[in-house]
């Protein structure tokens, strides 16, 4: 009799444990599936190969910006009034530092130069 009661108890606790495990699994699945669904349905995916000047960042180098935005390097350097001695391999951040200006200000100037170049040419810079 006592044995049967303990077996029943064991069965019951196992059932509760399994139920709890199942609930946790279902919650985890629904939570992350929902998160994934919301992420991909409620925010717009980026546009491929868009050359928006707002995307210029501190780590970029001037030759890379020149290639990506279709502005000849010479025009870029002239527009920014840089001497030919400036290190081409430096990032925008380091270049701005060596010129004693804030990198945000340097990026602003760079954006103006690119936009002006694109406006002055009949065709916009070809997106890469």
């Amino acid at each position, binding site marked *: 009799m006592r044995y049967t009661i303990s077996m029943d108890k064991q069965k019951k606790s*196992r059932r509760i444990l*399994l139920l709890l*495990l*199942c609930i*946790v*699994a*279902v*919650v*985890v*699945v629904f*939570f*992350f*599936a929902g*998160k*994934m669904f919301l*992420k991909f349905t409620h*925010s717009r*995916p*980026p*546009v*491929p*190969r*868009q*050359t*928006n000047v707002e*995307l210029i*960042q*501190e*780590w*970029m*180098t001037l*030759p*890379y910006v020149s*290639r*990506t*935005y279709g502005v000849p390097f010479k025009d870029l350097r002239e527009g920014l009034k840089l001497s030919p001695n400036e290190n081409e*391999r430096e*990032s925008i*951040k380091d270049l701005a530092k060596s010129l004693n200006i804030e990198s945000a200000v340097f990026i602003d100037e760079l954006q103006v130069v690119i936009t002006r170049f694109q406006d002055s040419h009949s065709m916009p810079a070809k*997106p*890469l």
Partner: protein
Amino acid sequence: MLDILGSLLTLILNYGYPIIFVTILIGYMGVPISLNAILLASGAFAVDGTLNIYILIPYVAFCALLGDLFNYYLGKKFGYLLINRFTKKVGLTEKRLSFVDGYMDRWGDWSIFYTRWLFTPIGIPVNIIAGMRKYSVKNFVLFAGCGELIWAGMYISLGYFFGANWYVLWEYIQETPQIIMLLGLGFGLLYMTYRIWKHYR
């Protein structure tokens, strides 16, 4: 963007492939660098000719495979030392962990394959466990190599396709590997519950 990632990207722009090699190896040593971002950026750099996409994909897969092998041998050489020294104190003895052998025999190939490109956040622990349990090196190279090729191909092609806009794409998909992994964990838990229920029925 994090300063380290920014500096690495500048170095890749200037010096190319050797920096990618070093970055991947550092990433596989457990240093938290977003290798997915590096791959997306490298793909984007291939658009203007800074890098070559046809060289880049197999090269990155090869570097990543070297990283996997580094973790594998780390597990093989020092894994048990770790178990005997530290985990014993919390009850995780060699005997108790022997169930992993059965798991590696049954699911090892696919675990290695899928953790290369789909469940990436647990890639390093899987490599170390494979090494600890002396999983066949030949199979490890085969499945890890195929997985890494998919990983490299997937992210580099996306970077190539999105070009200069890769950074926006990275912000958009940044959390996806973690979400996929946790979703997989949820399904795994459901399957485990079903198996236990079936066993006691």
